[in-house]
């Protein structure tokens, strides 16, 4: 059901006229915005060929700057995602444990890391720990800080997803497991978790978008990711504005694709759910902030 059907009647002649006027206003708004950007850019000589052409003609722009930066971004995001998944699973199950103290400790850990900004963690891990650590080769210090910060925050978000995924299952699932003689732990592992994980899948992909965006914070702890690459590229080729715009486009394309994939998986999970019961998918949008 599309939203306009809920809010609006089918338009009559007067409403159609009003819509046409509003369409005109919208087009003016769009053109006005584009003109503003164009005039400001040309006023400051930002539309010169030499600032834009390197992205197409000079392969060094990609091979020496942007692609290595993109690789570092993706590397940090993937490592963090895997570690955050493991962490989230452990603490999510901890929050569901039948032992009070386990539940309590996991709850405190998860709530703490969820309410501390990722950047504070990265900054502290980097300047306070990894940058001066003797056991860690110096070039890995920024990566370690970025990954640890992202893991602790996103792992805690995933732990909450695990918990709400299990809670959203019909109570009969756990009762059936217990009544055929499985222990609470076995019921959790072989009945509840698999279903909860399937319901979580779209939200997990949404979380990957959050992680990917947050790797850009790495620029503050000197991690040579995509945003840092844009900065060096911009000062090397005297095209800062252009470099940032192109890199923004790269981020948008990747994240938009991931969001679409999440939506697709969401639809599949919903279809399967209609077919044979089980857990409803958790909402993606709630997790996609940060």
């Amino acid at each position, binding site marked *: 059901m599309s939203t306009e059907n809920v809010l609006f009647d089918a338009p009559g002649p007067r409403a159609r006229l009003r819509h046409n006027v509003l369409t005109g206003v919208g087009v003016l708004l769009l053109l006005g915005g584009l003109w503003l950007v164009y005039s400001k850019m040309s006023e400051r000589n930002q539309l010169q060929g030499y600032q834009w052409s390197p992205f197409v003609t000079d392969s060094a722009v990609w091979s020496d700057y942007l692609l290595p930066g993109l690789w570092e971004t993706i590397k940090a995001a993937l490592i963090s995602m895997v570690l955050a998944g493991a962490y989230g699973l452990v603490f999510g199950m901890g929050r569901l444990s039948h032992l009070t103290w386990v539940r309590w400790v996991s709850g405190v850990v998860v709530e703490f890391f969820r309410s501390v*900004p990722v950047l504070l963690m990265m900054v502290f891990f980097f300047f306070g720990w990894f940058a001066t650590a003797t056991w860690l080769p110096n070039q890995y210090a920024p990566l370690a800080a970025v990954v640890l910060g992202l893991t602790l925050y996103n792992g805690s978000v995933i732990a909450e997803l695990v918990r709400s995924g299990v809670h959203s299952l019909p109570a009969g699932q756990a009762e059936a497991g217990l009544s055929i003689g499985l222990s609470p732990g076995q019921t959790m592992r072989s009945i509840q978790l698999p279903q909860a994980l399937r319901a979580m899948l779209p939200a997990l992909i949404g979380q990957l978008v959050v992680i990917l965006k947050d790797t850009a914070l790495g620029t503050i702890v000197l991690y040579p990711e995509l945003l840092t690459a844009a900065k060096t590229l911009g000062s090397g080729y005297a095209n800062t504005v252009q470099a940032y715009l192109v890199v923004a486009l790269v*981020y948008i394309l990747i994240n938009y694709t991931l969001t679409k994939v999440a939506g697709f998986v969401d639809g599949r999970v919903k279809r399967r759910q209609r077919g044979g019961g089980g857990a409803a998918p958790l909402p993606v949008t709630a997790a996609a902030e940060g």
Partner: protein
Amino acid sequence: MGDILSNYDILGAFWVTIQLSVLSAVGALVLGTVLAVFRVSPVGVLRFLGSFYVNTVRNTPLTLLMLFSILGITYILQIPFSQEASRNAYWWAVVMLAVYHAAFVCEALRSGVNTIPAGQAEAARSIGLTFGQSLREVLLPQAFRGAVAPLGSTLIALIKNTTVAAVILGTAESAGLLAQITENEGASLPTFFIFALGFVILTLPLGVGITSVSRRLAVKR
């Protein structure tokens, strides 16, 4: 520990956090509401504008927006808020936080509208309410109730994201100040916990409050 508290203006940094949060939350709410109206309007161009904005901004890292506001917009396009560098960075930080979170506010409001079953609008029409009446008496009250929880989590995300302003505000902001203290005085877990505690105090009660309010307001279906 006492030295750190007296030598560095930690409270001042958190005051900046609170200022940034309040100012940009107001900005994000206004802009996000306009965008949400665009996105649910029956006019195709406005819907396109709304969804283009949301898809662009939501998929761009906030850090990029912050850096671009200074390195790109202020230095090269020459659109400063103030000739004084720190004032300029402060206001650009507010603007970029508002611009970024407006996309999430828009989606929160839209998801509130989406919680309304079509039967509600149909029932309102069939008892003879006009368009304005059904919007005012039936649809919008339900939409706002449904939007409380997602709006609340956007606000909490915004408060935490003010730390990203450290890339342009430096030590005036809490994350920048923590970096400076840790670099100068060496790592100290208590210092980190003071900063972390500041954010726990700012966000945790808010989260608990919002959950209980949204439960109380939830429309039983």
